[in-house]
């Protein structure tokens, strides 16, 4: 692979932090068209929302520490779980990996200087911030924050007096941001690959972002129009979801899940891409089944778009539809399992280096497997009747979303941190954070699975005394988890300012982003590289660089 090695030693390395561009001060950030600066902007805001989501979740758990509902009133609890859901799903989990790491690394990994439409990229960020601000506004104005749950099911969302229309409008704007980001990444991947960067040589992270972007483009408009209909209903009373006027609330559920189920794949696919990128580096081995992983991502995106009915097994749909949705749900498990087996096969007989990024990937595989297998249980029709709307469901999806996407995101933090900031965190502390989080996570969410299995309904602010022990255990686990999060972020934050200077390629990784300085210069490459090998060709890389 051609790199900028020679030029590097002669010219001073001006990173994108130092090169402000046309504007000064804060404007150099909020008006930037540099994909890396935009990635950092997203980083700051997504993390801010992540913290507020964690705080909300923390208080929900605190409320459930003992029966009696002593800490807050039912209405407060309703707002709390609604906001926790809205913030975590729409402001954190969906945008996090594509907007932070996709923005920062997708162009570099394919050998480009920027995304295809830098100005639209900046617009996406502004839309994200505006949407988030409107959602925040809905919390503090009107008759109080939404209390519908993040799904905004009709007819309740049409009747409740709290601030639903404003929140929904914010989410509509966020959807526009998501669509434009998707358009940008698909076009970038098609048009801006460096010479020799064939589809077979794309890093798997690029493949993952590429499949995700397609889902963003195709699924997000459906929820956009559905949420717009809620607004129209609230203001004009058209009646499309109102039974009194002939509308059908179940149809709302269909429309909602047509987007929101694929959205769970928007959440998990990028994390899978990160894991596929990290594992070969720390196993010093070419990825096992490159094309199988790449294509299974596309397959997940495709089949995953046709399974939304499994959220509605007890809502009232025909038996045939339920059977079909259940079958398709089982089918999606296949490409997911293909990925897991390929990762494990990559580790097999590799020269494994147990650095923090790999540890987080291993946690991903473990937690995602539990999440995936519990998903199969509720995807079968008979158990679903028992498990629907119990704690089992949030238990399952936290294993997938937090255990999968969350730990994938943390893996990305630890893997790309030296490249993004040019400094290294304390690796020992990172391992400690990993241990604490993993323990807390399992105590917390496995208790939720058990609670659901025993019949504890979700979204209740109080419970029967028989659930006391498990609820107490879950709350205890949430404290350990939060402690682990604090250790991890404190460690990263310290590394940001006082960490030792990172080398350009501290992990000896062979993808393009590691062949340029840390942090990268504004234009990424002195010269666009010519690609002559695959992304995980370590033999070739160790010999020829």
């Amino acid at each position, binding site marked *: 692979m051609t790199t900028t090695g020679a030029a590097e030693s002669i010219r001073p390395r001006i990173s994108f932090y130092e090169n402000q561009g046309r504007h000064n001060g804060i404007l150099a950030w909020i008006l930037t068209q540099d994909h890396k600066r935009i990635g950092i902007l997203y980083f700051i805001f997504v993390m801010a929302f992540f913290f507020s989501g964690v705080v909300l979740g923390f208080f929900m758990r605190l409320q459930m520490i003992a029966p009696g509902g002593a800490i807050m009133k039912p209405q407060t609890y309703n707002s709390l779980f609604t906001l926790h859901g809205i913030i975590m799903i729409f402001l954190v989990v969906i945008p996090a990996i594509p907007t932070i790491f996709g923005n920062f690394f997708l162009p570099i990994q394919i050998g480009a200087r920027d995304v295809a439409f830098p100005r639209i990229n900046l617009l996406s960020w502004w839309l994200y911030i505006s949407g988030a601000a409107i959602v925040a506004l809905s919390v503090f104005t009107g008759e109080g924050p939404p209390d519908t749950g993040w799904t905004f099911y009709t007819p309740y969302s049409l009747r409740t007096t709290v601030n639903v229309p404003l929140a929904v409008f914010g989410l509509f704007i966020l959807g526009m941001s998501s*669509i434009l980001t998707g358009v940008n990444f698909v076009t970038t991947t098609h048009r801006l690959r460096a010479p020799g960067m064939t589809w077979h040589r794309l890093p798997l992270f690029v493949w993952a972002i590429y499949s995700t972007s397609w889902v963003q483009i195709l699924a997000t408009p*459906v929820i956009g*129009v559905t949420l717009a209909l809620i607004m129209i209903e609230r203001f004009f009373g058209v009646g499309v979801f109102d039974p009194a006027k*002939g509308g059908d609330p179940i*149809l709302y559920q269909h*429309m909602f899940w047509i987007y929101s189920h694929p959205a769970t794949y928007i959440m998990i696919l990028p994390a899978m891409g990160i894991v596929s990128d990290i594992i070969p580096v720390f196993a010093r081995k070419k990825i096992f089944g490159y094309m199988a992983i790449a294509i299974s991502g596309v397959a997940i995106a495709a089949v995953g778009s046709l399974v939304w009915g499994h959220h509605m097994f007890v809502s009232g749909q025909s038996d045939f539809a339920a059977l079909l949705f259940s079958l398709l749900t089982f089918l999606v498990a296949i490409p997911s399992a293909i990925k897991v087996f390929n990762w494990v096969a990559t580790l097999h007989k590799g020269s494994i280096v147990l650095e923090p990024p790999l540890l987080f990937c291993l946690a991903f595989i473990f937690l995602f497997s539990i999440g995936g297998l519990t998903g199969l249980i509720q995807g079968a029709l008979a158990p679903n009747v028992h498990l629907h709307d119990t704690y089992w469901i949030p238990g399952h999806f936290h294993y997938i979303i937090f255990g999968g996407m969350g730990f994938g995101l943390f893996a990305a933090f630890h893997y790309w941190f030296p490249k993004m900031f040019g400094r290294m965190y304390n690796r020992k502390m990172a391992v400690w954070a990993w241990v604490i989080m993993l323990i807390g996570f399992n105590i917390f969410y496995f208790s939720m699975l058990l609670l659901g299995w025993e019949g504890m309904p979700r979204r209740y602010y109080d419970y029967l005394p028989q659930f006391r022990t498990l609820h107490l255990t879950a709350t205890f686990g949430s404290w350990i988890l939060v402690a682990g999060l604090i250790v991890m972020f404190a460690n990263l934050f310290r590394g940001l300012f006082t960490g030792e200077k990172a080398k350009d390629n501290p992990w000896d990784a062979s993808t393009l982003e590691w062949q340029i300085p840390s942090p990268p210069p504004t234009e990424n490459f002195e010269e666009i590289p010519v690609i002559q090998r695959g992304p995980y060709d370590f033999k070739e890389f160790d010999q020829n660089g």
Partner: protein
Amino acid sequence: MDETTAFALEGQRDATGARLGMWLFILSEILLFGGLFILYSAYRYKNPVDFHHASRELDVILGTLNTIILLTSSLSMAASIAAIQRSQRKLSMVLLIATMALGLFFLVNKGFEWGAKMEHGIYPNAPTLLARAKGEILFFGLYYVMTGLHGLHVLVGVCVLLVMLILLSKGKVRSTHFTPLENSGLYWHLVDIIWIFLYPLFYLIS
């Protein structure tokens, strides 16, 4: 994909990329309306007779006139692009103005149509409408939502074309670089095509 693409891109505009981006955006627009078409099909399947009755009350002549207007505007749009490709800037601008005028004409017509319906007490949540059969309430509800969203797209389209007109007059869109105009044309045709589906589904089903 051509492997020399990246080289070609250094310091140059990527017209193919811009077109690809526009097509992807159009795809998402189609799905936006797609959600509403799903609602339409579900409710029409449930209330075929009510939809039939409600549809008879729409003014077929006005609807047909609007269809002709919008189709003609697509023609002038395409001709405007063809003109700038042949370096005929004046002609291109005249055709673009004609397109915008036809778009506005469409909206005015639509406004009259809506106004007439409202005068007869047919608008969302109107007591006279609520007294009717449920399928008819839904039909008119969808009629207002779908033609309204479409009208909004026409309005946005006219604004986009106005920007294009300015770019044309300043020579920023020219025979060697006309992708923005071409992309605006794609958007305009999309708006046209959506109407081609709305027209029979609302006006011609009785």
